């Protein structure tokens, strides 16, 4: 335990999800004061993590949450925009309602949270915003059209925020996970077929021969949140076990 985040405050959207909860746990272990913001309270929270009911798609909630937070905290050092959903469909099968919903959460939610958090983030002497992009923002997974599009938007927004707010001392980066063992990945694998042999095939195609864990992702979020990463900004950090370093592997 290095306590690399001692004295820092952190706000994590999607803070009770697969990756979000691992981030909150790691931040708390490193000495930060942490708020896990999400739709519904989890059964249990790690020590030093506070839950706040939050909806990234609701402008009033976003505005009010940070107004109230400004009365309690004099700065926000770390903002993690981890709230996100996935829709397993091609564009033909995607309804307009579904398209609008995934953009509302994955992109508009990041915009609203960042917009209303900025005044408090600006008060930090060493602020770090970490957005969740995806390896799917670079290369497509089949049947995830709207999801891929939202992640491309996140990547562009990340660079824009870094460019605009860097001079104010705010670093902005995105993490682009590949396959990470979360409920979202289990949904992607689906119910049909031989799930174990599918999982093995997916593991074997990775240079690391494994897919990632939420803790692997939290390791990089922790580094980017810390002052160790004080020169890192405007970048998209792919963390995928080497998957995208290789061309598609044919079964010959």
């Amino acid at each position, binding site marked *: 335990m*290095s306590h690399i985040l001692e004295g820092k405050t952190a706000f994590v959207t999607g803070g009770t999800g697969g990756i979000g909860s691992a981030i909150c746990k790691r931040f708390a272990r490193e000495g930060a004061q942490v708020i896990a913001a999400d739709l519904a309270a989890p059964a249990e929270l790690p020590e030093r993590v506070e839950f706040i009911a939050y909806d990234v798609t609701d402008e009033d909630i976003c505005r009010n949450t940070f107004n109230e937070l400004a009365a309690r905290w004099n700065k926000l050092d770390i903002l993690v925009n981890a709230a996100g959903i996935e829709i397993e469909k091609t564009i033909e099968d995607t309804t307009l309602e579904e398209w609008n919903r995934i953009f509302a959460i994955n992109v508009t939610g990041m915009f609203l949270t960042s917009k209303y958090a900025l005044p408090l983030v600006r008060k930090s002497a060493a602020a770090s915003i970490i957005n969740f992009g995806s390896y799917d923002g670079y290369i497509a997974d089949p049947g995830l059209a709207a999801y891929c599009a939202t992640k491309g938007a996140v990547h562009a927004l*990340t*660079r824009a925020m*870094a*460019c605009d*707010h*860097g*001079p104010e*001392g705010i*670093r*902005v980066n995105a993490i682009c996970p590949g396959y990470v063992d979360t409920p979202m990945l289990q949904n992607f694998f689906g119910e049909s077929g031989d799930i174990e042999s599918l999982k093995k095939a997916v593991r074997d195609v*990775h*240079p*690391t*021969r*494994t897919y*990632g*864990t939420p803790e*692997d*992702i939290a*390791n*990089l979020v*922790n*580094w980017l949140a810390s002052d*160790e*990463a*004080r*020169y*890192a*900004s*405007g*970048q998209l*950090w*792919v*963390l*995928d*076990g*080497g*998957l*995208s*370093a*290789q061309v598609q592997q044919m079964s010959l």
Partner: protein
Amino acid sequence: MNMLRHKTALVTGGRQGIGRAIVDRFVAEGARVMTCGRGPRPDDLVAEVLWETTDVADKSDVDALTDRVVAEFGELSILVNNAGVQIEKTIVETTDADWDLLMGVNAKGVFMLCRDCIPIMVKGGSIINIGSISASTADPGLALYNASKAFVQGLTRSIAVDHGPAIRCNAISPGWIMTGMADAAFAVANDPDSAKLDALARHPAGRFGEPTDIASLATWLASDEAGFATGQCYTLDGGMTSASPLNPGLF
């Protein structure tokens, strides 16, 4: 701070600049470290760091270096290919001797170090190659340097794919880091001082990088924290390449 306890590291080009910052940080994190350079051991190198006078472009030197790693450490867990040279020329001005010097160090040296070191990473390892942002976007007048750094990126991915899961291999692409190499690049500008001010205004971080910034990322990549990171070229440039090179605010 013991992120690299029980690890052994070889860092090329440890005389100064980025290489020295990495050596010092690795020592602070508990690693046993060997470094090298073309000249004699620098006087200010901390006593516990091993030094081997080495030209990384010379096969017999590289073989002797890795033999010494085995003799001193028994095995290797971290290799940082940092040694590099820069020649400020377009290709029309570049001589065959320039090619041999630059590609010998920046490309052949990295290849030979990896070839020798992968077999001695018997408990698995992390290779970190120092690339450059100029692998993806060209710095004017640095033709061979830019091309050599694209080689480094391609080799990095190949090693990750061929030698995973035991070996992880990543590259760091620094932007403008305040070293002798950056000073040499600014020196060729018409007005070096105003060139520096212009460059500074293009950094969202509001400053140039320091060698210790690169050492921070090298330490993370060398540590077990980065267990899922491989095959990537991570840019650390204070946000410079995230913004368009056409910046109307500077006109």
